[in-house]
């Protein structure tokens, strides 16, 4: 219904405006309705502006900026209406060192409200994990899962698990 959508839109937009600068260490973004007269069917647009840059066509943003903007939106939606869990499959792949750090900090801060399952190849992201499962194929083509006890190992050992 119109009112439900409007209410959700406004609330999610508020969160989005707050989360974006946290992930980007500055800048601003907001959601806009393409056709405010037609709440029932209007599309939703994103205006996003990384720190110091001017807002233009969102398509001109870099690969990492687009990924981080999408993450900001997903987080904003979760803050409004948390789902039982959130699965993120290699969303950190295009991010640089500093963006990954802020992404991890954001995920960590939401742990009390959302159950996160992350898939990653990045050691920095692994550092914020509370539980790690290693998926392996000792026998080709057959997957197997091993539980990795984090408290029992030091960081270099964790990294070497990858190899």
């Amino acid at each position, binding site marked *: 219904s119109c009112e439900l959508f409007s209410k959700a839109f406004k609330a999610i937009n508020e969160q989005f405006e707050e989360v974006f600068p946290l992930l980007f260490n500055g800048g601003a973004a907001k959601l806009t309705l393409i056709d405010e007269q037609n709440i029932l069917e209007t599309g939703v647009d994103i205006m996003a502006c990384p720190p110091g840059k001017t807002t233009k066509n969102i398509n001109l943003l870099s690969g990492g900026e687009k990924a981080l903007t999408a993450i900001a939106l997903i987080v904003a939606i979760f803050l409004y209406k948390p789902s039982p869990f959130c699965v993120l499959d290699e969303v950190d792949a295009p991010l640089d060192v500093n963006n990954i750090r802020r992404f991890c900090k954001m995920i960590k801060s939401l742990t009390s409200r959302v159950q996160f399952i992350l898939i990653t190849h990045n050691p920095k992201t692994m550092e914020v*994990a509370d539980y790690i499962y290693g*998926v392996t194929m000792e026998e080709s083509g057959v997957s197997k899962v091993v539980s990795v006890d984090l408290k029992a190992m030091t960081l270099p050992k964790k990294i070497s698990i990858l190899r």
Partner: protein
Amino acid sequence: MELNGFKSFIDKVSINFSEHGITTLIGPNGCGKSNIVDALRWALGEQSSQHLRGKSMVDVIFSGTEQRSAAGFCEVNLTFSNPKNISKFKYDDFPEILVTRRLYRDSTSEYQINKTSCRLLDIKDLFADTGLGGKRGYSIIEQGSVGMITTSKPSERRFLIEEAA
């Protein structure tokens, strides 16, 4: 969550996703991490084989390797230990919700909620409005699709807001 015969998981595998804290899956390319995510979506009622990278739904059944022959069926069991988070009605009095989906190579399917037979629609209804819904859900971001949210059509972004509304 338990996978049995789903994609590369021919040997039954059980994974416990801790309720408190971040669970991270790691491993080399092609070892099965995204297959676990596919199994999760499938158990929640995914109906499009394309969203699971297959041409037809039977593609999710273990198809054999040089050492092992193909499986005749696959099954995924998904246990939720906190039903009030999932569903506002019907199952509140259960301590857990167990969702089972089974597919046989001849394309017949079975679905169960707490060991009671049901239809796929019942499973999908269970998760309606939780953000876990297939195409419109915002809870599962598959590999490669994070950038697409930013570059997608405005009408598709609307679906995300609608699901949360």
